[in-house]
């Protein structure tokens, strides 16, 4: 009896301590995550006419989002651009991560990783502008190719369109893909690769049967880290995307700031979020077998 009571009292104080510990991050999450998110969701069910906000709940915004083809087009384009950016980023990041993990001597690895993060020392905006300089009509890329006599007139398909958006974003997000893949590759016990060779497989087949499956957690992480933020990017499409390179975030920005239609912007934001969430979940479900047991 007595013992039970002490235990219960002890247990209660432990629970109290637990709540106390969780309280700060919980308040943080509530104020900075749940409240803004809730506000956006609320807004999406309201309507606005110039300066008056009508707070009656309605699905009008969503109806408009689905009936107006421009919104759908922008959403699909955002999805495709993000997909292309993710593909390009991960495909270029993998060899870099592989090189650093497998061919750089251990004592130099941290220096290499440090060098990879150097582009982050400059502002994102400046990096996007620099890509304009590189890809422009009289830019570094075109002048070089012209000078080498490879092309006769400057290439125009590399700036102010979707291609430019993909190139710029792929560069901007490269470290975010390199790092998780590098970590996954570092975790692979090198004896496993010898075992693959010992059991009769060539270097190439060992890569596909051992290295790649074991690096998949890093690849999955890289895909999500690149895909989720790029779909909402609006700086890059605004600066290098031209009229055809605009994405859903640009429309959300326009709704909020130019058209003074926050509820419509909120509805589009909710739709974009739902789409990202759905794609990410489907992707995780498809790659689940690689994420088990490691």
């Amino acid at each position, binding site marked *: 009896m007595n013992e039970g009571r002490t235990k219960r009292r002890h247990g209660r104080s432990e629970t109290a301590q637990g709540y106390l510990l969780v309280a700060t991050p919980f308040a943080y999450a509530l104020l900075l995550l749940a409240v803004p998110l809730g506000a956006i969701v609320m807004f999406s069910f309201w309507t606005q006419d110039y300066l008056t906000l009508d707070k009656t709940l309605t699905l009008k915004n969503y109806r408009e989002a689905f009936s107006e083809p421009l919104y759908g087009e922008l959403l699909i384009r955002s999805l495709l651009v993000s997909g292309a950016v993710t593909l390009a980023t991960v495909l270029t990041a993998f060899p870099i991560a592989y090189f650093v993990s497998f061919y750089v001597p251990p004592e130099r690895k941290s220096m290499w990783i440090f060098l990879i993060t150097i582009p982050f020392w400059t502002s994102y905006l400046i990096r996007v502008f620099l890509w304009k300089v590189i890809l422009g009509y009289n830019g570094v890329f075109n002048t070089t190719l012209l000078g080498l006599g490879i092309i006769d007139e400057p290439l125009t398909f590399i700036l102010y369109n979707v291609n430019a958006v993909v190139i710029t974003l792929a560069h901007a997000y490269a470290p975010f893909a390199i790092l998780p893949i590098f970590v996954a590759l570092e975790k692979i016990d090198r004896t496993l690769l010898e075992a693959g060779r010992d059991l009769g497989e060539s270097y190439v087949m060992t890569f596909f049967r051992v290295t790649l499956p074991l690096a998949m957690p890093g690849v999955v992480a890289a895909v999500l880290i690149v895909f989720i933020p790029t779909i909402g990017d609006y700086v890059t499409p605004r600066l290098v995307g031209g009229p055809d390179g605009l994405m859903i975030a640009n429309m959300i920005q326009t709704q909020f700031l130019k058209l003074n239609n926050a509820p419509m912007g909120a509805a589009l934001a909710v739709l974009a979020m739902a789409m990202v969430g759905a794609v990410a979940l489907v992707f995780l479900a498809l790659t689940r077998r690689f994420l088990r047991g*490691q």
Partner: protein
Amino acid sequence: MKDTLGVTRPIITLDNVEKYYGDYYALRGITAEINQGEFFSLLGPSGCGKTTLLRTIAGFEEPSSGRVTIDGKDMAGVPANVRPTNMVFQSYAIFPHLTVAQNVGFGLRREPLTRKEKERKVVEALEMVGLKGFGARAAHALSGGQRQRVALARALILEPKVLLLDEPLSALDKKMREQMQMELRRLQRQVGITFILVTHDQEEALIMSDRIAVMFEGQIAQLDTPQVLYRRPVSRQVGEFIGVMNFLPAKATVGPDTHIEVEAAGLGRAVIGADQLPGGWHPGQTQSVGIRPETMSILFEGETTDRRVATGIVEDRAYYGDMTYYEVRLDGVEKPMTISMKNLVGRPVLERGSQARVAWDARSLVLFA
């Protein structure tokens, strides 16, 4: 194993194999023949080159010079994946992303078998190592001993000419290790494949091997059967590494009738046979004799013997239950020597400081330079 003509056939020939990294020699002048179907061990302290030699045979390291021949074929430039060897790694190297059955069947991809046949082979291999019904388990959910069995099955399923084992038992606890020693031995006899075991555990090597190569500093110090290695080590280093050996300063001369006469500190004069002098040098070079603890015995009071007797004082003793290990300082010798005695019925355990009469035989002396 003898072939049809009754001749022992080498499956692996190592011809003056050397490996150096810069000016560091990992292997020097390794020359040896490993016979078809034998259980061969590479024994030595860490850093002696035994693992490097095993990896050279497997094809993970190219020798800097010399030749490795497996089954009559020169292995120069032959990569690990096409050599007729398979390896059980020290860490077992079980693929964590595959099931037990997928691990065991990993090497079968290129075999010209139907899926059914492959599945049957996997089941058989698992049965052979005592893991029947484990096929569907995730590899990461296995215990150390089970991982080792998976590694064994995965290598043996490919029916290699030679199975290479890199300290496979060092990660297991004592009981498990002893059980696996017996099981490996049984498995080797059953499949008849040549096993090459790398180990730093001399007891393990003695228990399991047909022959052992003792290695120090990249060289083979002695290559022989466990019994010869134990009884007739060629150097103090080998004698010290395998089991316990006592060393006493000694001089030897060739007497009349080509008998060798030894004068060992604390023991006195003795005549020994020529086989007790490790080959290659003149008895005059002898500087010490070695004698194993169990070849001597302490006589209890009043006991008589026709063996040689030396006297000394018990400096220390360690009681092990079945055995007592005495540290006895012989008269005229500074360093005490170890003598092990079985605790037979009625035999008293001597106390520190008591006088001891030590019986020994000239036949158990080994001469060293």
